[in-house]
C-alpha cells in the first residue's frame, strides 16, 4: 500500500485538495498540463459576492503548493497511462520540455522582452499577444518562462537564439527533451475542471462575426489590471481601431522620410509616394474620429444562459453564470461610474450565501438593470453597435436595444481531456460528460480509489469547489489509511 496521492489538475479545486493532503502529511503529486497552476480562477478579475480580487486571494495558495515540503508540482505535464488499483496505482506521466531550466530561470523576463515572435496570449483569451518565450501569467507558479515550440523560430528551423544569448542565468536550453516517468500512488483525485462553451455555435448571437460581442471570460480579462488593456475598460473594436491608427501613423512616417530622400535626388519623381501619403493623411483623421467615438463605453448588455439550459447545446445550468454577470456588472461600474449595465436573464439564480443581497445591492447601488427575458438574437444596429433582440417577459414588449458591448455568459462544459482520462482510468461520465458520482458519496467516482472534485464533477462555484476538494482529500486519506 502506498501513502502517496496524485492530483490531476492545478485549478483551485486541485490546489485545495493538494494542500489538504500535504498538510495531513501525505506526499502529493500535482499534475497540471499548462505551464502554471492557477486554472480558470487565476483568469478571473474579481470574485462574487465579496468582490475579492481573484488572484490576490489565490496567490498565497499558489505559493503554498510550491513551497510545501510534501508536494511535488509537475506543471506542463500530462497523464499518459494509469494502471493498478486502489492503494497501488501506477501512473505514467509525460513532462513537456519548456526549453528553459526551471531551477535556473529567475523569471526576470529579459528573454520575453527581446523575443521577436509575438503570438496570441491564450491567458488573455487571445485579446493580447505574448512572446514565443513567455510566462503563462504574471503571478504564475512555478515562476519560470517557457518556450512555445509551435511559435519559436528555432523550432521552425530559422536562425535566432536571442533568448539564449540574453539570458544571464543561462537557463534557456533548446535541446531539452520531454521526460516520461512513472508515479506510484495509493489514490487519485481528478480535478480537471471545465471548459468555457464556444458560443460561435449559436449563429443568432453573432459571436466572432459581430464586433464587440464577447464572452464573459474575455470580459473578465478586459477588466483585469494585468489584462490586455491594463484594466482600462475598452471595447474590442476600439482596440482594433487604435491598432490600425498606430499602423497608419507608422506608414505615414515611412512615406514622409521616403519622400524627403526622393526630393534629395530630384530626378526620380515621388508622385506615387506623394499620392499615397495624401491618401493616408485623409484616412487618418477619419480613423481617429471613429476611434474617438468608440473611446468611451456607456452601456453593456449581459446575455445569460448562452448554451446553458438549452436542450440543443447543454441541458444543464452553469450554476455561476447569474452571479458572474452581476459581479462583472458591479466591477465594470467601478471602472466607470457613468456605465449602465443590463442583464438579460431567464431565472435569477442567486442561491448562495450573500448572493441575493449582492444582487439587490447591484441594483440599488450600481444601477444594474435586470431584464427578465432570454436574448433571441444579436444583430448590428443602425449605428453599427451590437443590438439585442429580446422579449421583456414583465412588460411583454419585444424590443431591439443597442449596446456598446455585449457579454455572453457562456455555459460550463466538460474539459476536453476528461473523456480520454475516463477511458484511461475507467470511471464513468454522466450524460452531460461530467464525472459521474454517487449523490450520497459526492467525491467518489465509479472506480475505487479515484475521486473527483470541482467542475470536473459538474458546474459549481469556487466555495463549492474548495469544499469538495477537501472532501476528495478526506476520501483519499480514508482509502489509503484503510489499506
Amino acid at each position: 500500500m502506498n501513502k502517496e496521492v496524485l492530483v490531476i489538475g492545478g485549478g483551485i479545486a486541485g490546489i485545495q485538495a493538494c494542500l489538504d493532503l500535504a498538510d495531513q502529511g501525505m506526499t502529493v503529486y500535482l499534475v497540471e498540463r499548462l505551464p502554471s497552476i492557477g486554472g480558470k480562477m487565476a483568469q478571473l478579475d474579481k470574485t462574487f459576492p465579496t468582490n475579492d480580487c481573484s488572484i490576490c486571494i489565490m496567490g498565497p495558495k499558489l505559493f503554498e503548493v510550491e513551497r510545501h515540503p510534501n508536494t511535488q508540482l509537475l506543471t506542463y505535464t500530462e497523464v499518459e497511462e494509469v494502471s493498478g488499483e486502489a492503494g497501488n496505482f501506477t501512473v505514467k506521466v509525460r513532462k513537456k520540455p519548456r526549453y528553459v531550466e526551471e531551477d535556473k530561470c529567475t523569471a526576470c523576463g529579459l528573454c520575453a522582452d527581446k523575443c521577436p515572435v509575438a503570438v496570441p496570449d491564450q491567458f488573455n483569451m487571445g485579446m493580447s499577444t505574448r512572446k514565443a518565450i513567455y510566462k503563462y501569467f504574471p503571478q504564475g507558479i512555478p515562476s519560470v518562462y517557457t518556450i512555445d515550440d509551435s511559435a519559436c523560430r528555432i523550432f521552425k528551423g530559422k536562425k535566432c537564439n536571442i533568448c539564449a544569448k540574453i539570458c544571464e542565468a543561462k537557463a534557456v536550453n533548446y535541446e531539452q527533451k520531454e521526460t516520461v516517468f512513472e508515479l506510484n500512488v495509493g489514490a487519485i483525485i481528478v480535478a480537471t475542471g471545465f471548459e468555457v462553451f464556444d458560443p460561435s455555435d449559436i449563429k443568432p448571437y453573432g459571436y466572432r462575426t459581430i464586433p464587440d460581442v464577447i464572452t464573459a471570460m474575455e470580459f473578465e480579462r478586459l477588466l483585469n489590471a494585468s489584462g490586455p488593456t491594463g484594466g482600462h475598460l475598452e471595447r474590442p473594436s476600439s482596440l482594433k481601431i487604435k491598432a490600425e491608427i498606430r499602423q497608419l501613423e507608422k506608414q505615414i512616417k515611412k512615406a514622409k522620410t521616403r519622400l524627403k530622400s526622393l526630393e534629395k535626388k530630384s530626378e526620380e519623381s515621388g508622385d506615387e509616394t506623394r499620392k499615397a501619403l495624401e491618401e493616408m493623411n485623409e484616412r487618418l483623421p477619419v480613423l481617429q474620429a471613429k476611434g474617438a467615438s468608440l473611446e468611451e463605453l456607456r452601456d453593456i448588455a449581459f446575455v445569460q444562459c448562452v448554451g446553458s439550459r438549452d436542450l440543443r447545446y447543454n441541458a444543464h445550468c452553469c450554476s455561476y453564470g447569474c452571479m458572474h454577470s452581476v459581479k462583472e456588472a458591479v466591477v465594470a461600474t467601478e471602472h466607470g461610474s457613468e456605465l449602465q449595465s443590463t442583464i438579460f436573464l431567464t431565472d435569477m439564480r442567486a442561491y448562495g450565501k450573500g448572493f441575493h443581497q449582492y444582487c439587490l445591492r447591484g441594483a440599488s447601488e450600481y444601477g444594474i438593470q435586470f431584464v427578465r427575458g432570454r436574448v433571441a438574437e444579436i444583430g448590428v444596429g443602425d449605428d453599427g453597435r451590437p443590438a439585442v433582440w429580446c422579449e421583456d417577459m414583465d412588460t411583454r414588449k419585444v424590443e431591439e436595444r443597442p449596446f456598446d458591448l455585449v457579454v455572453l455568459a457562456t455555459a460550463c462544459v466538460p474539459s476536453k481531456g476528461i473523456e480520454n482520462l475516463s477511458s484511461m482510468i475507467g470511471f464513468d461520465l454522466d450524460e452531460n460528460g461530467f464525472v459521474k458520482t454517487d449523490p450520497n458519496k459526492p467525491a467518489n467516482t465509479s472506480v475505487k480509489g479515484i475521486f473527483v472534485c470541482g467542475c470536473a464533477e459538474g458546474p459549481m462555484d469556487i466555495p463549492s469547489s474548495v469544499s469538495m476538494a477537501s472532501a476528495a482529500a478526506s476520501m483519499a486519506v480514508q482509502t489509503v489509511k484503510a489499506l
Partner: protein
Amino acid sequence: MSIQDLIEKTKVSFCQDCGVCTGSCPVSRVLPGFSPQQMVAKYVLSSDLGMEDEVLGEQDVWSCLTCALCLQRCPSKVEYLEFVRGVREEAFRAGNKITHAHDGILQTITQMQTSGLPQNRTAWAREAGTIKEEGEYYLFVGCVPYFDVLFKDMGVSPLGSASDMLKILNKFGIEPVVSDEERCCGHDMLWSGNVDLFKELALHNVELIKRLGCKKVIFGCPEGYLTFKEYYPLYCTDMGLDAVHFYDLVYDQIQEGTFQLSPLEQKVTYHDPCRLGRMAGMYDSPREIIASIPGIKFVEMERNREEAVCCGISCWANCSSYSKQIQMDRIKEAEATGADTLITACPKCNIHFSCALSSAEMGLEVKDLTQLMASAMGI
C-alpha cells in the same frame, strides 16, 4: 386531438418562459401583443383549468406565420409548429376560421376542386414540352395555374416557371406524367385547420398518382414538396411514393455535368423559403445551382439559411400591414447585399416580394430560381 394531449405531444410544457420564441418571431416584432410564448402559456393553463373554449375563439393563432424560426431557436425544443397546427384544427372545429386574403378566392378554388369537376391542367404542359400518360415520374404542378391568372399583372409568371421546369426535365430526358385530375396539395387547408378537406385532397392525389403507375413525384413548389413528404404520410398509410424536389434533380445533373450553362452577368442573393429551408432542410441545392451558373456573383443576406425570415404571409391569410412590414424589411436586407436580383424558390415568396417591390423604389428584381436556370440553359 385535445389541447391537453397536444400539449403532451408537442412538449410545450417544457417551455422555460424565456421569451426567445417571441423575441425571434417576425410577427411579434411588427404586431404588438402577439407572443408565441404567451400563447403557449395561455393554452397550457386554460386546458389545465378546462377553459379551452375561451381561448379557442381568439385570433392570435391565425397570426402565426408557421415559419418555424421560433422552433429553430427554442432552448426547450418545444414543437411549436405542430402545436399551432393542432390548435388551429381545434379552433377550426370550434368555428374559429382563418381570415383569408384575396377575399378567399384561392380557398374557394381549392374547395371547388373537391367536387369531381374535370379540369384543364395539362394544356400548358403539352405546349411547353413532352409529357406522358403513365410512367415513373409524376410532375406535381400544384396551384401555379391559378396564381398565374391572379398575379399576372404583378409581372410574375408561376406557370412560366412550371413550363421551364418541364422543359428542363425533358432536357434531362425525363418525360413526366401530368394529370388533369390532380388536385391542390392541401397545404393551405392543413395550416388553416381544415384537416378534413386536407385528408380528402391528399387521399385523392395519392390514389391518382399511384393509379398512373408513378413512383417518384417531382415538385417545383416547396409547399407541395414538404406537404407530400412530411404530412401526407400522417394520413395516407403505405403511400409508396417518393417526393423529389426539382432542385435536387437539377443539382445531380450539374454534378454529372450533363449540360452546358451560358454565363449570366448578375449579382444575386437567395431567399430561403420557410417550407424548403427550415422545414424541409434544403439549403444547399439551390445555392449550388446558382453557383454553377458562370458569371453569376452570389451574396448571402445577413439572415440566411436556418436564420432566414419568412416572406410575411402563409396560406393566403392575414395579408396586412405587418406582412408588408416584414416583406419590406426582407427586401431591404436583400438590397443591402448590393445584389440586383433576389432569387426565390417558392411561387408564394416570389409573388409576395414582387408585390412589396411594386410599391417600393428599389433597383432590385425578384426572380424564380427555375426561371433563372432556364435562361442560363438558353430556354
